[in-house]
């Protein structure tokens, strides 16, 4: 842990991209996020793991304010997250998001899914947007499906299109909210491969996942959450081989031994 925090502070002075400070959120009586402090530096890949209901998805969704927070502050690239309106929309455009259920626009072709944001938000020229979209679709390996509708694609293909759609906005950071949880087992790897490639290319990523293999191989840091709190932060090696908290030991013992 000492190594990590030193490395973190070195970078933190210059390049804090996402900063959450004492963030609290309730769903009714449920205190779903409790005093969350989390700093993500540029180029870092942070994997958030933890049992269901621990607040990890909510944490991910607060970063682009799909969930509001009750107290605390969230800043992206030095700018505090605005509450509503145009400012918020502009900031969201800089934060890519990939959902568990893909959420592609069902009435638009794959290509239109990837060009919509470029044209309407970035005001890009139609032709340029299409070129970029095709390049991105090729990059995630679904270039041949550009003119199909989402319903005609497999889950893995849809999720890769969703990644391309988010990348088309040139985001500063990408949020992945359990991107492989709704996929058939045989399609998980094609999505994880794309994500690993993104990580290698230096994209800043926050990934909520149950894929421990991905956490081990692609993460710079693992954040373990339970009951609305960040219980433990460590490098993947440290976390998986030598977890410090009992809660993490318990969690790992349940998922790793079968």
């Amino acid at each position, binding site marked *: 842990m000492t190594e990590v925090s030193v490395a973190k502070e070195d970078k933190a002075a210059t390049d804090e991209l996402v900063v959450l400070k004492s963030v609290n959120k309730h769903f009714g009586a449920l205190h779903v996020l409790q005093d969350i402090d989390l700093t993500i530096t540029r180029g870092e890949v942070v994997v958030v793991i933890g049992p269901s209901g621990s607040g990890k998805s909510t944490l991910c969704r607060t970063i*682009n304010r*799909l969930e509001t927070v009750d107290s605390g502050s969230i800043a992206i690239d030095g700018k505090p997250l605005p509450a509503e309106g145009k400012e918020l929309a502009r900031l*969201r455009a800089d934060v890519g998001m990939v*959902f568990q259920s893909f959420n592609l*626009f*069902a*009435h638009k072709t794959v290509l239109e899914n990837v060009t*919509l944001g470029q044209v309407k938000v970035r005001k890009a020229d139609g032709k340029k947007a299409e070129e970029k979209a095709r390049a991105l679709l090729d990059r995630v390996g679904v270039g041949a499906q550009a003119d199909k509708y989402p319903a005609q694609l497999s889950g893995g293909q849809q999720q890769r299109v969703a990644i391309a759609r988010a990348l088309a906005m040139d985001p500063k950071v990408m949020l992945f909210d359990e991107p492989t949880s709704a996929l058939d087992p045989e399609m998980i790897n094609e999505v994880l491969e794309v994500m690993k490639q993104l990580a290698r290319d230096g994209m800043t990523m926050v990934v909520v996942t149950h894929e421990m293999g991905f956490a081990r191989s692609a993460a710079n840091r693992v954040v373990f959450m339970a009951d609305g709190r960040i219980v433990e932060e460590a490098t993947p090696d440290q976390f998986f081989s030598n977890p410090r908290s009992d809660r993490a030991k318990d969690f790992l013992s349940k998922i790793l031994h079968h």
Partner: protein
Amino acid sequence: MFDFVKDYDLLGAFWTTVQLAVLSAVGSLIWGTALAAMRVGPVPLMRGFGTAYVNTVRNIPLTVIILFTSLGLNQTLGISLGANDVETINFRLAVLGLILYTSSFVCEALRSGINTVPVGQAEAARAIGLSFGQVLRHVVLPQAFRSSVVPMANVLIALIKNTTVAAAIGVAEAALLMKEMIENEAQLLLISAVIAFGFVVLTLPTGLILGWLGKKVAVKR
């Protein structure tokens, strides 16, 4: 047997019915969509207005609304909607009344369509930086319209038949002509049959065509 029909301008009367229906349909679609946008929007004041409007207007009998446009708006407040002769004024007032009434049903049909669009798609649209208006225009409404074609067809058929209420303020459409014919001829059943047939000619294809269209444009999920 149908000789008496020649003495009346049946086609002219039905043409007025069609005009009433088409103009009211277009107006209701626009105002109803605006109401639906208010009801799903983020501004509490507009949400409140949309809800109050729909719940008030759809529960008032159409006859009362149409009579109000004539007695209230025109004769009391002097609103003539830019027309000078009584016939045009009454026609326009009837269209206004039909729009005010029908848009509350259009709003609810459209809202049922909006509910078929998964919440996640609106979230994804917001997440790429689209504003509320853009989310509605480019993602939610196009899908909502497609899945509300069939309920909209019901609203349109009801509207076509509701145009007969315009007779209450003297608009020379099919129902007013029917009243006149019944007063002049001893052919009650035949006259009713002719008018009823005229409406079926208008409404049956509407339902069939929109039913087919609804299937054709349905969004595959």
